[in-house]
């Protein structure tokens, strides 16, 4: 099941220019969005105008080999601001999605949420934190935790 989810998320993202998930600098948090352009006709007629909104960057820092971590990195890259929000609140569907992608058991979910909320400032040290840095920080935090380290083992 875990593999299936990882596969699904990679399939979904396959159209994007993303060389090696979990391997890069990733999107900077709160990177300027294109905003809601007054595409009156586009809104009426449901065309797509090529999605400039989901731009991302890649790099080659500390590549992750664990497939679950790769999926998480992929998800973080497109949803980093919402993940950060849920993390600061200690709950929310984006935080649950991270848990699903990492395969965190129901029994460990409370610990998972608490560790991430308590260490928010470690995961996102500044407003320029990138998704890649956040992923690396999360992995480092989970590795140090007795009950959560098994989910990020390489």
């Amino acid at each position, binding site marked *: 099941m875990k593999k299936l989810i990882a596969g699904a998320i990679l399939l979904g993202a396959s159209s994007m220019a993303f060389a090696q998930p979990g391997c890069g600098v990733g999107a900077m948090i*709160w990177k300027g969005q294109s905003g809601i352009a007054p595409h009156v006709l586009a809104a*009426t007629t449901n065309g797509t105008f090529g999605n400039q909104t989901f731009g991302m960057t890649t790099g080659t820092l500390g590549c992750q080999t664990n497939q679950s971590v790769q999926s998480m990195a992929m998800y973080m890259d497109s949803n980093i601001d919402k993940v950060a929000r849920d993390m600061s*609140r200690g709950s929310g569907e984006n935080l649950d999605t991270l848990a699903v992608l990492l395969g965190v058991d129901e029994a460990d979910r409370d610990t998972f949420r608490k560790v991430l909320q308590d260490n928010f400032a470690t995961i996102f040290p500044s407003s320029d934190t990138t998704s890649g840095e956040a992923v690396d920080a999360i992995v480092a935090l989970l590795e140090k935790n007795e009950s959560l380290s098994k989910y990020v083992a390489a």
Partner: protein
Amino acid sequence: MGNMLRIGPVLIWLAVSLPTQADTPADTSELHLDPAWLTLIHYQPDTFGDGYTSQADDPAFFLSEDGKHSPKSELQATLEAIQKPGEGDDHARCQFPARTTWLQQELNLALPEISCPGYQEWSETLNTETVTLVFAASYLNSPSSMFGHTFLRLDPPQDDEETNLLLANTISYAADAAAHDSELLFAYKGIFGGYPGITTVQPYYEKIRLYSDIEHRDLWEYKLNLTQDEVDLMIAHAWEIRDRNFDYYFFDENCAYRLLALIDIARPGTDLLGEVSTHAIPSDTVRWVVDKDLVSDVYYRPSAATSVAYSLSTLPDDHQTLAAAIATGYVDADSNEVSSLPAEQRAHVLDATYDYVRYKSEADGWPREIAAPLSHDLLRERSQINDVAPPEEPPEPVVRDDEGHDTFRMSLGAGQLEHREFTQLTLRPAYHDILDPPAGYRTGAQLQFLRLDARLYTDNNELQLEQLTGVEIRSLSPRNAFFSPLSWQVGFGGRRTDTGNDRVLTPYLEGGAGGSWSLGHQTQAFAIATADLEIDDDLRRGYDAAPGADIGLLHQNNQFSLLAGAKTKAWIVSSQHRQDQLYAKANWHIGREFSLFAEFTREDHYDRYQSLWHAGIHAYF
């Protein structure tokens, strides 16, 4: 057995000519006209003649050279192809798994097991147990989004903790417009054809990002009651049309239309496409799906904008002021004013302020240099408060978008203009007028297409075209401390205009922009600066233009709607007269099928006063 298979088509021919033989496949002579087959190949009856044409615009979708126009030869070609030996992704059975399944059932074909690695991997990855039709509603201050948008979400089995609908995949169909095409070219090609339409698979969280976060559209999720076999057939057909071109047309063969076809295929006999006449408005297609008893559950997912407006409104007044002060930088997120609050209230202020800052960054383009450090401060402070639940979600609207009044309106009324009596018939194919029953529609939004007003003056039995509205869009959205949307309007068409001694039909173009302010529950006051242009050879200089103003009140509730105000226009080119109007319009809603309407206008133009009375009934279909 292999031999049997190879001579399959011969057997079928035998079956046609020797119908008494009991154990041969069923009769195929009329099979190509079976509605299920016609739907699978997307055939529609020709407008002229009695043939059929497929809407697929891609030769690779057909196995027969005549496939586009001949259901019969496509059926024969398919039958031959699926019974050929061999296997692998290029085999017809692997390319067309839905056709294969259907033919197998209809004809009791015994086909050997073969492997289709590509299709198998695809369907296993999609891992679909149920299908949900998702409707992206219109958003405030964008009446042009009123038509909505639909796509399908493929939901995995929901039996374990790893189920997560954000990761579910979606199928949508859209015009593949080149990014550099201008909007005008986009509109032209969209209406007259020219864009390929493609089917795309994307995770749901990307759809949420686009519709809910960036476009501020609430999402309605209609879980369909399809069985596993029906779902499998739909997925199989989605595989057949994936990467296949179907030309995209905004009004009929659009995003919603292709999804209806997929549902028709999943459950033969549903015939949702039969409901489509000239246009397929996504919100109407949702009604059809609900009417055909295809929906088991409905869920509401408010957009980021809806959520933030709601969580700000639930804050007490002094906390709203504090939130605004933090957002604008007057108060720091870690200042005494904030940290002195009890934990729960502090969390609510920080949550609402963060969501508001994100909203302003998306919607109003707040620069990152300001928004990002502020966002970071807010989240860092928030992360220090444990065990406070996130903000409450906005309540689900009592009336869903598909439960509002129907969009085609016919009106019959009688009135009096300057002591001349008339009866008037109005036809409006789409969509919603500011005075129509508001339930299920956005407050203060109006979008009308191709409205025709015809008048019969009873004194001399003169029939006149009073007005033909091409498009009329109006958006009145109230401003407050947090949101400052522009209220605006635009319209064009042909209308009667007073030249001083006659009322002549002239083409017109009008627009306006201004503000609106809420005066308490369901009432708003607006002030709009307007501009009008009329072009006609009956006007002294061939055209006339008028800057003007429109100031009024709007009240909308489920029993009645009221619009009253004053308009002034200064015609400055030809007539050089001011036109002042006082107007009042009221609609009394009787359920969602009917409204009684009445309007009164008093006008001062060319130094004379005249009055218009008009009253009657609207019926919605």
